[in-house]
Every structure is written in C-alpha cells, then in structure tokens.
C-alpha cells in the first residue's frame, strides 16, 4: 500500500521546478521593478551610493520631465496612435473580412504577399519619406507620421482581422441571412459584435505598435515629437532619474494593455505569422 504524500523524487522535482519558475519570474520582473522604483526616487536618494533601493517615492522626476516637454510628446504619441489605429482599421478590416469570408482567385497569393509585407523592414521607408514629405508639406506633422505608422500596421491588421472574422461561425451569419438581413446588416448585427473582443485587442496592440515605434518617429518629427523621439533627443541628455521617469512613461500603456488583453496576446502574435 502506498503511503500518502509525495515521494522524494516528486518533492525534488517540485522544488527544482519552483526554483526555475522563480528564477524566470525574477529575470523578467526585477529589471522592470527596479527601473520603476528609480523613476520615482528623488535624485539625492538615487545618487546616494549607500542606498540600493529608495524607501520613499516622489513624483518630482515625472514633474520635471513634464516641464521639459514630455507632456506635449505624450499627447503627440496619443494622437498619432489613434490616427494609426483609425486609418489601419479603415483600410484593413474590409480586407481582413474579404480574406476570411470569400473564396476568390489569387487569395493565397495575396495573403502571402501580405505576410511578406509584414516582414518588410518598414523603417527603411522613413528616409525617403522625409524627403517626399518635405515636398508635400507633411514634414514634421503628426498626420505624416500616422500615415507611415499605418503602413507599418496595415499588414498586421489585415492578417489578424482575417483570423478574427474567420472565428465568427458561418452558421450564425447564414442564419441571419435567412431571417432577412442584408449582407451589410449581417456584418453590423452579427459579425462585428462577435468579432469585437478580438478586434479590440488588435486595436490596442496596433496603438501600442505606434506608441513604441521610435525610428520613423525620430526621423520624421522635430518639433512635433512623439514620446520615443522625445526620449531619444532630450531625455538621453538629462540626468538618470529623468531618464527613468521617461522610461516609465513609455511603458505605462504597455502595462495597461497586458493587463487588459493578456488572453489575446498569445493568439494575436502567433496568428500573424501563419
């Protein structure tokens, strides 16, 4: 008769597993935590070699950063992000729907083309785009940057909305047609509501892509800088605590997004590869 409880082998395995798990968690969380702590520690505490971790927190770094011009760049990033999501969804959702719900000649080839575009180094368009924008008067504008970001996000939006729409059961749509709705009506009343969770996650991720993008933003904007461009051009010349405060500002939407959309992160990223 087996005695209740864990065997020695199981216990050791369990302990090793717990150790590995905590090492992995620490590897991810510690740098994050440290930089956030430092972002909120006053310069005297930070520059004091005897203090490893600050015990009292302050908002003074964020305030200083704000005064340096971060407020405006955060606003710019938000505007560009919203524009990017709007444009890419306007252009991308219909295409995604077409891939999901229609059979047509060239479907596979076009989809492969889209996957190829997703892998194209979009940042290389920034250099000529600057020159082109000068001629068009779009130079140093948020609209110009949003248009470039839309090019970056569009393949992703098409691919992921295609996957999301595919997930809406065809039977429901056909049933709606039987009940007398027009195809457009089906789209609004049946498809969109069911696709909404996935599309919302895609929208948040698209916003995040634009928010995080630094190369194109740094090249195309000068006075209307977005946050990453601002960091590159101003914050890097400032003191350490200011740098960390800037880093914190950058990761706030990322942390919010992960909190809200964590379930979709895995599916979203793996879908766009296939």
């Amino acid at each position, binding site marked *: 008769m087996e005695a209740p409880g864990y065997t020695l082998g199981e216990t050791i395995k369990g302990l090793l597993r717990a150790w590995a798990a905590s090492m992995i968690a620490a590897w991810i969380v510690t740098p994050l935590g440290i930089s956030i702590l430092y972002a909120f520690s006053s310069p005297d505490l930070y520059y004091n070699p005897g203090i490893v971790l600050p015990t009292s927190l302050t908002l003074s770094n964020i305030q200083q950063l704000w005064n340096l011009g971060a407020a405006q760049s955060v606003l710019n990033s938000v505007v560009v992000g919203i524009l990017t999501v709007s444009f890419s969804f306007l252009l991308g959702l219909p295409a995604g729907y077409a891939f999901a719900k229609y059979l047509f000649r060239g479907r596979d080839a076009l989809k492969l083309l889209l996957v190829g575009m997703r892998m194209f180094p979009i940042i290389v368009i920034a250099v000529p785009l600057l020159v082109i924008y000068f001629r068009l008067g779009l130079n140093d504008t948020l609209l110009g940057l949003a248009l470039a970001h839309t090019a970056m996000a569009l393949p992703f939006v098409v691919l992921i909305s295609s996957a999301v729409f595919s997930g809406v059961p065809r039977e429901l749509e056909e049933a709606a047609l039987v009940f007398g709705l027009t195809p457009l009506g089906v789209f609004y009343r049946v498809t969109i509501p069911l696709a909404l969770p996935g599309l919302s996650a895609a929208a948040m991720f698209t916003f995040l892509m634009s928010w995080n993008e630094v190369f194109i933003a740094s090249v195309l904007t000068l006075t209307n800088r977005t946050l990453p461009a601002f960091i590159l051009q101003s914050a890097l010349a400032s003191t350490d605590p200011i740098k960390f405060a800037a880093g914190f500002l950058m990761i706030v939407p990322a942390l919010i997004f992960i909190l809200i959309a964590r379930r979709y992160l895995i599916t979203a990223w793996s879908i766009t*590869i296939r």
Partner: protein
Amino acid sequence: MGFERFTPYVLIAPALLYMGIFIGIPILESVYIAFFEQGAFTLSSIDRLLTSSNYVEAFKFTLLLAGVIISVEVLLAVIIAVFLYYAFPGRDALVYIVIVPLAISDVAAGLIWYSILTGNGFINKLLLNAGVIDSPIQFLGYTVRHLEFLAIVLAEIWRSMAIVFVITFAGLQQVSREIIEAAEVFGAGFWAKLRHVIIPSIKPPLQSALIIRTLFAFQIFGVVWVLAGRDIPVLAGEAYYELRILFREDIAALYALTIAAVSIAFGYFYLRLLRARHLEV
C-alpha cells in the same frame, strides 16, 4: 457568401494600394536619392559611404548583434516553452509574466537596463553595499565598448525573447493531445515524449519565429542608441545620424537600402532553404 466576383477584390484593393504606395514609392525615391545627383546617375555616394562613414563597422555590428542575440534567445525561448508545456501550479501566471516584455518598446527596454547597469544603477549599488567591489564597475561608455555590446545583447534578449517564446509556445500548445496520448499508450516516458513528440513539434513555429525575429533584428536601433549611442554603430542608427544630424540624405538612403537588401536576401534564402510549406496560408 461564396465565390463572388468583385466584392473581395474591392474590399482588399484599398489596403493593397496603400501598401503599394507606401512601400513602392519610398523605395524608388530611396534609389533616386542614393544614386542620382541633379538628375545624373552617380556612384559617388557609395564612395563617400565607404570612406567617410561607419558603414563597414555598422554592417558588421548589426549582423554580429543579430547573430548573438538570436542564438541565445532562441535557446532560452525553447527551454522555457518546453518547461511551461506541462501545467503546474502557477504555470499560467508565469506564461503571462514571460510575455510582458512583448509590449515594451526597445527604447524603454534600453532605459530599464540602463537603470540596472549604469554607474549608479542597481548592480553597482548592490555589489558596492555588499562589499564585493570598492568602486562602481563601468558597463557603459566608449572605453568599455565590449561591455556595452554585452549590455545591448542582454537588454535585447530580455525584451525580445518574449516574441520567440510566444510563437513557439502557441505552436507547442497546438500539439495534438492525441499524439501525446498515443505515445503514452506505446509506453513513452517523460524523456521519450520530449524527444519524439515535443521537440519535433517545435520546429515549424520556431522557424516562423526565427525568420520574423531575424528580420526585425537587422533594424535594431533604440536599445543601441540608449545604451551605447554611436559607440556601437548599427545600420539603422547610422541612417538616423546621417539623415538627421549630418543631413547626408544619399548616405542615409544607402543605409536604409542596405537594411532592405539584407532583409530581402535573408528572407529569400531562408524561404528557399525550407521551402516554407508552413507559411502557406
């Protein structure tokens, strides 16, 4: 909804047109900027590129960084994905934790690791106060370029391993339970299942992850700029510098075209090599 003649094309056309315009025209313009001076074709920009810029170094470092970072993070991602394959208490929480860096930008990742490695950063403070060292170790700065390189590698692995992991993990999760159970019926133990079912199932998603990760690695910019500035020149960094600081558009265009060329070449050879069956959608 079936085989309808024009609707799908009408729906797709705007997106395709937009991409065509925003990729095609800039590429053409790039070539023009790089190779045409006042309307005449010239290769003088290449000459200036090779003699008066950091082109060779940037090319070298970009590829070197890509090679080192990707090798290490793929190994880590696979090990962690396999480790997290079987459920255990806290497994789901750990998966989410590992995925967190996915949403973090390279600039932020650079700043985060700056807070760990700089003179007043966490590691130095820790070691100083523990009595292990007498004065701060310098990880960042031109004189310690080799350590800067390591810092960049560390920060990038921390940030982008999540990308490889997510794709590999998602792919692994789809390994049919039936195959696993069949293996168990045939008496496969833990290690046998690992070797004959799990590891082979990693290959397709890993290949996808590898190609996308490598292509993005050629564009490395933010992390390098934050941690090392131009001490470690990379293609994208030099392109930015040439364009925005030196106002040499033709040189910048050449850098950009180099990134595009390397990416396309790599993508082409990679797909050829694997006859990318799994990329067919």
